[in-house]
């Protein structure tokens, strides 16, 4: 109970700070929208050439952009943690009886909330461009986005609090995320890949996420592909939250 109050207090604080700066909405949305508007048509016509129906093309492309938004949107929240640590905010809050777990979760939930809003907007913007998708499928996909961003944001915060340096955090995240992103088939479906690349990609978690979200957009919900996606996202999320919690608990006396 007390933990929930703490989480709520920390969440509200961070949300207020974000909402006061309307710039984030513009900046946060501009990139995915640019991907949709400026790159989407190119992508969908490329897919059409290979024989994919235009409708299918958008169902393939939009989930990819969602995963990309998720990956980059939440992975970099650690920068905010480092800034707070530098400013002494984290120590100040740690001297109060606030739960250490709430300091992590309250903050991360703000990031998740903002990300989900962005994801919804992205889907809405894609509709007039030609996206047709099943409503339950999109809801499942948004659920996956939520789980995934929760996990990634926790990982990022934990990493930030461990390295405590932007100069280490940035390159570490980029080095880690770039191959994962390329191997996930976000940009082009991995079914176009040579066999070895397809195999390597099956060793990375995001491959399943992207595949499952595409299936969901096409209307599947209770299929092996979609359910295993949910399972992968859930595992990533649970493990990362646990790791984050452990880091936040450890960093105290």
């Amino acid at each position, binding site marked *: 109970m007390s933990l929930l109050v703490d989480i709520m*207090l920390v969440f509200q*604080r961070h949300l*207020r*700070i974000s909402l006061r700066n309307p710039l984030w909405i513009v900046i946060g949305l501009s990139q995915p929208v640019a991907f949709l508007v400026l790159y989407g048509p190119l992508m969908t016509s490329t897919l059409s050439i290979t024989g994919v129906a235009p409708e299918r093309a958008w169902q393939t492309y939009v989930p990819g952009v969602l995963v990309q938004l998720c990956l980059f949107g939440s992975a970099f929240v650690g920068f905010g943690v480092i800034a707070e640590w530098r400013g*002494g905010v984290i*120590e*100040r809050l*740690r001297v*109060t*009886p606030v739960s250490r777990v709430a300091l992590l979760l309250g903050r991360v939930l703000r990031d998740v909330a903002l990300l989900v809003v962005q994801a919804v907007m992205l889907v809405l913007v894609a509709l007039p461009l030609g996206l047709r998708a099943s409503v339950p499928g999109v809801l499942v996909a948004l659920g996956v986005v939520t789980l995934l961003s929760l996990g990634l944001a926790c990982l990022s915060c934990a990493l930030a609090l461990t390295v405590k340096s932007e100069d280490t955090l940035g390159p570490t995240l980029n080095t880690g995320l770039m191959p994962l992103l390329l191997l996930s088939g976000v940009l082009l479906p991995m079914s176009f890949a040579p066999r070895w690349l397809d195999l390597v990609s099956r060793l990375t978690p995001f491959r399943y996420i992207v595949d499952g979200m595409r299936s969901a957009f096409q209307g599947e919900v209770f299929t092996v592909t979609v359910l295993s996606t949910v399972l992968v996202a859930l595992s990533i999320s649970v493990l990362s939250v646990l790791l984050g919690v452990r880091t936040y608990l450890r960093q105290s006396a």
Partner: protein
Amino acid sequence: MSIIEANELTRTFRSGRQSVEAVRGVNLRVEAGEIVGFLGPNGAGKTTTLRMLTTLLRPTSGTARIAGADLATAPREVRRRIGYVAQYGGTDPNALVEEELFLQARLYRIPVAPARRRVADLLERLDLGGLGKRRVGSLSGGQRRRLDIALGLVHDPQVVFLDEPTAGLDPHSRNNLWEHTRRLREDLGTTVFLTTHYLDEADALCDRISVIDHGRIVAEDTPANLKRQLASDVLTVEVVGDPAAGQRLLAELPGVRHAAVTSTGGIQVTLADAEQGITDVITALSGAGIGVRALQLARASLDDVFLSLTGRELRDDPQGRHSSIPTTEGADHVPAR
């Protein structure tokens, strides 16, 4: 039972292959309602000690009890009972002033309505009235410092730890904070443990002073006792007559540690305690027929205490207030009778 009890606290930092023994066995006893100053030169281990006492840093060894709760086994209890103002503060530049205070109050579980009243009250008392809706990042340095202090006091803690609370404050704000601190003690019996680099502040505000150097406590007493033991009052006498004869005479007096003729023909007398010594000096001189034209007294200061304890200035003072002969700056001018 003392409200702050630290036993043999040590802390060693490791950075790479180097290790720094920042604190090497600190023992502290502070009674409820005391205002205690924690003094020491840069790098002496003040902040490190405070961070240990406030549960932020695990001691390498040693134990402590704060307000009856054990630091190692009941850190959360300790946190409930203390307030802490860090040396460099801890506010978010993007938050609003009143948001920061309100959050802090709520984290200590002050209910919403009393928390709002508390925030308004603290803003008023720390001269931050009208700034509640401002972004913290837009405050001036001194205003932000006062906000830091307000944050540490939001929940009326039994013990507050203030790490250089008045660094960067103007004289008015400093006085205001002293007043506030004294009132806290009077009204609520709050115990205050503060570090400062201003010796006048320690002198004016603190009941007791602990001096830390190289991670160890090197002296602990009231400001008056420290000055009596470790520093002297210096009296400069301008005489009508032969200063050398006066000097020989005064050097023999009990209570006079040292007497010398100055380059301007005065006599400089180092006294253990000016309150008693000054009359003896005048009596002795007039008894010998040496007239006194003027007297100038430089009272012992904590600066002298500090210098004699650590061999260092408390701060790297660009004006270099210390020379081997104390200057008359800040001296009481005593006209001859």
